[in-house]
């Protein structure tokens, strides 16, 4: 049987392997060095690779990202962690206007192999500025890749790909997945960007879900199976580039689409997917598209209220059934 490891371990392995592979690869950010990150993803790296390659930066997110760009265009391969993806707001200019555009606006003369690791998601009462899932903002950016794994194996293969890719990659890690275990082979592997994973085949309704919501969608799908509703669950794995082929193929078969994500609904990651389908596949749809998403209000800190922000199995089941009415 294949070994099972947590997503944290899988990410950690990816970092180890890529740091070993290329000595110009560096890891830095707040608390990533000595303690190995507040979520423990970079544990052991400083011990192994030294303080020059793995270190704790001051609390200055613009500078972390700006410096990463400076390193990348002069021969290094920086991997920086934002302690919480929410802090991408602080370094927004550096991400949206610098990382994404530096190569293009300077005539294609640079490569920008930057990876930003970005913990997202609602987890344990962290409140309105430590719980967000801001990936939709960067779907609107240019020149960035947006990666969002849902399980240990994908996390490992995608992170290795991200580090090797000569372009800037935003790598979103759902905090609630760090402890989740899954099968990951011992041998080295990469997962290419732009290839969705069909997590479960089905014929009645297509669900497109990302990150933690893939698990929720699969749970819903299993329960729906008991009602003889056959659901296909697709995890795009990368939002930019988006594997429209796989998604469209599925919708052509099912005629129904439910999109599930934790980020707020308005202008969220589901909007672009829904819009593409409404442009390209309108006559294949047999029911209105449904989005099951976070509400358009900031995330309360009250731990008792958190559940109201996260798409639940019941929410998904209800949405799927509505498409079948």
């Amino acid at each position: 049987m294949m070994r099972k490891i947590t997503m944290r371990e899988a990410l950690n392995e990816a970092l180890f392997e890529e740091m070993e592979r290329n000595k110009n690869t560096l890891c830095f950010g707040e608390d990533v060095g000595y303690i190995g990150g507040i979520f423990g993803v970079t544990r052991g790296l400083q011990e192994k690779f030294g303080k020059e390659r793995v270190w704790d930066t001051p609390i200055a997110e613009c500078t972390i990202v700006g410096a990463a760009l400076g390193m990348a265009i002069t021969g290094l391969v920086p991997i920086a962690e934002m302690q919480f993806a929410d802090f991408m707001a602080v370094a927004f200019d550096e991400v949206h206007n610098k990382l994404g555009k530096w190569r293009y606006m300077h005539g294609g003369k640079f490569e920008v192999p930057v990876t930003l690791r970005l913990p997202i998601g609602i987890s344990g009462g962290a409140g309105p500025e430590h719980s967000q899932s801001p990936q939709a903002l960067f779907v609107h950016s240019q020149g960035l890749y947006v990666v969002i794994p849902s399980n240990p194996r994908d996390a490992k293969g995608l992170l290795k790909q991200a580090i090797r890719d000569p372009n800037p990659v935003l790598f979103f890690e759902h905090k609630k997945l760090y402890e989740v275990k899954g099968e990951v082979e011992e041998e080295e592997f990469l997962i290419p960007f732009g290839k969705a994973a069909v997590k479960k085949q089905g014929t009645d309704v297509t669900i497109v879900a990302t990150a933690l919501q893939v698990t929720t969608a699969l749970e819903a799908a299993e329960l729906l199976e008991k009602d003889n509703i056959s659901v296909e669950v697709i995890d795009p794995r990368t939002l930019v580039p988006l594997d429209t082929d796989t998604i469209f193929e599925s919708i052509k078969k099912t005629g129904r689409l439910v999109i599930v994500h934790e980020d707020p609904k308005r202008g969220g990651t589901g909007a672009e997917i829904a819009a593409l389908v409404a442009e390209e596949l309108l006559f294949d749809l047999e029911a209105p598209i449904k989005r099951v998403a976070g509400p358009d209000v900031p995330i309360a800190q009250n731990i008792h209220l958190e559940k109201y922000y996260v798409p639940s199995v019941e929410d998904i089941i209800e949405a799927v059934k509505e498409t079948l009415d």
Partner: protein
Amino acid sequence: MALSKYDKDLLLDLYRTMLTSRRFDQELIRLLHDGKVGGFHHSGQGHEAIAAGICASLEDKDYLFYHHRGCNQQISKGISLEGIYADFLGRVDGTTGGLGSGIVHHVDPDKGILGQSGTIGESYILAAGVGYSIKYRGTDQVCVAFNGDGATAREVFHGGINWVGLYNLPVIYVIENNLLASSLHFQNSHSLKEGGSLADRADSYDVPSFVVDGNDVLAVYEVAKEAIARARNPKERRRCTLIEAMTYRYRGHFEGDSAEYMDKDVIEEWRENRDPLDNYRKKLLDSGTFNEKDLTKLEKEVDDTIKNAIAKAEASPIPGRDRIFEGLYA
């Protein structure tokens, strides 16, 4: 200054404030361990003298931005204990009306407590706007913004202090420098001269600054009193001030942090020899200003206050789903 020169009420109030802060925190941690409080708490144990010393010269009309380790600051400024306990417990009678708290977001406009930003250090710039507002409206209010040493590395520090200096605003920046920013030691976070301080940053902006022993409540009180008086007076050449108060924290960065990066001996040293409450209590007794009975009485009062606050907070209900849709827009 000799203790005898101080007003006795003030001396006792300082003790009461520090003790309330300490006891509040201890009880909160108990509630956390009992599983009644979720989310994050950054304990301010060890820092109590700073907020107590600063806020002693502030009035309700004055403004305050606390930081993530800021319960002491809110308590020193007069926030309702019951309110912030209810926040931590996630009850509707919390200061946020049921949205809860943890990292930040307690609030009390009537006490001038303006809240806090989850991205730390933002109060450097928010306070600049509040200072401008005070100056424009021509009142004698003051705005105090507390931050940590770590947050002072943030880019916004420069933007804020430059505004405050340029427009000569009634703003006091207080840095609670506990030598640590999460696991990062102060020395590895800031480029400074040998023996230099964060207070030195203020110099080129022509902002007066002080480094003060943050575990000595009267030392903090003196420095703050001068700064606050200067801030209130529109005729002063410099109304703004940066105060760096040196201290240490007794616990991990947040409750649950195993804090292996901290040296247990160093913590012990601070606890044993530099505790702001113990040392101050001793001083009050040694100087003969108060006797053991006076202080025990006060200690009992504080305990009762805390117990009462918790009881009231726990009696408040947990909100339902509707709550999250309230109050987004005015």
